[in-house]
């Protein structure tokens, strides 16, 4: 895979997702924007990130997938104002921090968001 293909992969990612953690190398999480920068500069880290992108993997274990999804959701939710924003048709209402707590403590509510986030991460890696 050439660097151009990585650039093309990056360009297909919606802007709002370019700064969310997506790839794990040596225990560190990287966003698509960071990955593109490393690949473009041809660093050793860039080679490892490019290898993940080529093999369409963002982590290597189930635990890493779960962890990445939680990191991404935390990135999104922890910056939001603390007011009721999300509700369900089972009568539950959440502020962003309350939803984040559900996610971090692995409740069924939180797991619904984590599972959907993993689906989205896989779709990004597949370039769809």
């Amino acid at each position, binding site marked *: 895979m050439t660097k151009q293909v990585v650039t093309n992969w990056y360009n297909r990612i*919606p802007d709002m997702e370019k700064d969310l953690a997506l790839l794990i190398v040596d225990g560190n999480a990287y966003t698509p924007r960071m990955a593109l920068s490393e690949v473009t500069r041809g660093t050793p880290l860039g080679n490892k990130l490019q290898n993940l992108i080529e093999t369409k993997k963002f982590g290597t274990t189930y635990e890493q997938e779960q962890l990445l999804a939680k990191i991404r959701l935390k990135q999104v939710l922890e910056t939001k104002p603390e007011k009721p*924003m*999300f509700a369900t*048709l*089972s009568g539950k209402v959440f502020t962003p921090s309350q939803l984040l707590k559900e996610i971090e403590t692995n409740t069924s509510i939180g797991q*619904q968001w984590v599972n959907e986030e993993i689906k989205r991460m896989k779709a990004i890696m597949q370039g769809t």
Partner: protein
Amino acid sequence: MPAIQNVFLFIAPMGHYLNYGSVVLHDIISANRQAGQIITELIGDAANPEKTEEQLKTLQPKVFSAVGHGNSTTYTVESTAKFVDAESPKLELFKDKIVSLTSCLTAIELGPAIIDAGALVFMGYKDEFWFYIGDEAGTTHAVQSPFLATFQFEASLLRGKTTGEARKDQLAKYDEEIQYWTVGAGKDHPESLELTRILEINKSVSTFLGEPDVAPSLPSITMPISPMLPWAISLLALSAMIYREATK
């Protein structure tokens, strides 16, 4: 008594944040209703268990579409009053009908029980149905978006499509709304990512059970104004004049 074609019953409770869905449903009905359809909406306090049961029995609607809080076995109406559960004798009221419950979790047990009781179709959700309440109900695209997607099913049924076509339209509407928040006009909204995830979650847990080829209403008919109409009116006026003169 068999369900009656072209008859629709909508249940729209308003309390406990249900107004977020019910106001969108009302707009969808207004925008898509066709001439000749008999449409009843039970809104707010009228969306109570007694009235809902009474209207189901007397109207025998082909389509029963309801917003409400729910769980795997139970659907509730206004003030979270229980209307029906998976063991209820009321299930027989759904025989021969298309049932759509915009409600959490009801596709797990209640939906299959409704189908077992003889309903033709059940449309619902097998996990939590999410929506955004960051703005007042009905005021922004953000609060409407999850409901615009799910109620495309009702919109298409009102337009005369079959249940299978309406389901296909609903899934396409989910994709359209996701695109709106991802790369469309809504991509710069502060909660665009959360709205995208809400729509993705709702889409993935939406559940269609039953027959795909049921059409509850006739396809919309548009009657073009005949170019002969002005002549016909003139002729009618002339005939009336002649008649008046002849009977003087």
